[in-house]
C-alpha cells in the first residue's frame, strides 16, 4: 500500500461526482492524509487470516417465491424528478454504454 497516490479525478469519474479543480486538490490532500493513517494496516499480520464480510456468520437466508403487494404507481411516480405518463423520464442516454 502506498499512500497519497490517489487519482481523485479518476475516482470521482467512477463515482459520478463532478469536482472543481479546487475540490480535487482539497479532497486529494485530505484523502492522502487518511490513507497515510490507513497504511498502518500494513503492519498487521493478515496472511493467514480470513476476510470478514459479515460479522454474524449466517448462510442461506432466502425467501419463498410468494407474491407480495407492489407499490401503487402514482406513489412511485409521484416522487420522481420527472415523469412521462406511466414512465420515469430521464435525460438522454448518450455515451452511456452498459
Amino acid at each position, binding site marked *: 500500500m502506498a499512500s497519497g497516490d490517489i487519482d481523485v479525478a479518476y475516482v470521482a469519474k467512477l463515482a459520478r461526482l463532478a469536482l472543481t479543480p479546487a475540490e480535487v486538490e482539497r479532497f486529494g490532500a485530505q484523502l492522502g492524509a487518511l490513507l497515510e493513517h490507513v497504511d498502518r494496516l500494513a503492519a498487521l499480520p493478515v496472511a493467514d487470516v480470513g476476510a470478514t464480510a*459479515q460479522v454474524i456468520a449466517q448462510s442461506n437466508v432466502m425467501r419463498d417465491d410468494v407474491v*407480495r403487494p407492489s407499490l401503487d404507481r402514482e406513489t412511485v411516480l409521484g416522487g420522481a424528478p420527472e415523469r412521462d405518463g*406511466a414512465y*420515469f423520464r*430521464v435525460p*438522454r442516454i448518450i455515451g452511456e454504454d452498459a
Partner: protein
Amino acid sequence: MSATLDAAAAPIAIGGVAYEVVMGIECHVELKTETKMFCGCRNVFGAEPNTNVCPVCLGMPGALPVPNRLAIELLVKAGLAFGSEIPAYSKFDRKNYFYPDMPKDYQISQFDMPLTQGGVVPFWLPDGTHGSCRLTRIHLEEDTGKSSHASRDGRIAGSTHSLVDFNRAGVPLMECVSEPDIRSAPAAVAYLEALKRTFVALGVSDVKMEEGSLRCDVNLSLRPVGQEEYGTKTEIKNMNSFNSVRRAIESEMARQAEILENGGRIVQETRGWDEAAGTTHSMRSKEQAHDYRYFPDPDLTPIEFAPLDVTRLRESLVGLPQARIDRFVSDDKLSIAQAHQIVDTPGLADYYDAATALTEKPQATANFVLGDLSRLANETGVPAGESRLGVESLAEIVALVEAKTINSKTAKDLIARVWSDGGSPREIVAAEGLGQVSDSGAIDTLVAAVLAANEKSVADYRAGKTKVMGFLVGQVMKQSRGTANPTLAEERLRAALGDGAE
C-alpha cells in the same frame, strides 16, 4: 475439447491462409418464478409500466434484498442438467456501474463464486454430426429495467430523453457463460437450441427471445487454423431470434475476414446487430472506464449447498431432452430433425415414448406422431397427449397398418376420428368393415365396374396415356370406400386392361 465435428466449420481462406472462427456465447436467461429475485413483486412479461415495483426493486433508500429460493434452485437444476459442479459455497457480489435503468446503480450478481461451475452442453447439428460446448459457469443476477428512447427512429442516437419502466428490474436472470468452443454459425444455433430445450423441459425458463427472456451475446474472433492463441474478438449483441444469431455471426465473420484480407486489424469492441440492415455496427461511444468494483454484497448471506440438497435437485431432473434426442437418434434410428421436432413439441416426446413402447415400431410411430398427430394438434389446438387418441389407440392403428389390415388412407381417417370421438380403432375397423380388401375376386368386381363406367379413360390408356392408371385406381378405392388394397387394385386393373403379361 473444442471438438465439434462440424461440417459447417469449413475454414475461411484469407490471403491464402485457412482461418477458423472461434466463438463463445453468453446467454442471459430469465428464470420462471412467480416473483422477482429479491422482492415479492410479480415476475411477468407485458404488465402495465411501473406497476410491478416496490421499494426493493426500485432501489429506494433503506430497502433490502432477500433472495428467492426457487430462483437459486432453478439455476442449480439448469447447471446439473449439463453436469456442472455445484460448489459448496457461493455468494452474491455487487457490480457497480451507473445506468438509468439500474435502480441501485449496482447490480447484484456473482463475481468469483458462482452457483455452478463447468459442465458440457452436447448438441446435434442439422448435418447429423454431434457437437458440444463447455460451460464456464452459470451465475445468478438481477435484471435491469427497460428504457425506451424517445427519438424519431427509437435508437439511442439522436434521442432527446428516455422513458424507463422498472417492471423488469429485479427479475431473476441466470447468465450462462460458455467456453470458446463454437466453430460455426449452425453450431451456435444448435448450442442455443440445446440450452433452450433443456431450460423449457426443466421449467427453468420460458426462453422467449421475442419477449427478451433469453438474450445472448456472441464473442467472435478469427484465427489461422492450427494457431493456439485467439484473435482479437468482438462482442455481438441485440439479436432477437436464433435466426438473427445465425445471420449476425455470418455477417460478423465476413466483416472480420474482409478486414484481415485487406491487412487491417480487428478492434476489440461491442457491436450491435441491425436486423433490418443485416449488419453489425459499432456500439462504442464515449469511453467510460469499466471498473466494476465488485465486492461481496453485505446485505446478503452466502449460499451453502449441502450435498443432500444437490442430490435432491439432481433427482428432480427427469426426461432431460438431450438424452432423449440421443436415444431417438441412436436407438430408434430417427433422423436428427425428427428427434428435435418430437422433443421440441411440448408433451410429444412423452407421447411418442409411450406409444413406441407399445408398437415397438419407432419409425412408423414417429411418422404418425410428426405427421397426422402434429397436424391435428395444430388444427385443434389440443396436444396429442390430451386428445382422445390415446397411445393404445395409436398403437392399434400402427399394428393394423403393419399387418396390412388397413391401408394408409383408412389409418389417416381413423386417427382423425378417434382423435375427436375416441373409441378403439380395432373395433371400429371390425364393426364397419374398414379392413383392407385384398381379395382379388372382390377387387375384380370393382375393377369391372370402374372400367365399364370410364370408357374414355380405358381408351386413353390403350392409346398410351398410362397416366390415367392413377385415376382408375382412385376410382376403385372410391368404390371400395377406401378399403381396397391399392397395390392389388392397380395390379387387377392392369390385368383387366390387358397388361397382365407384365
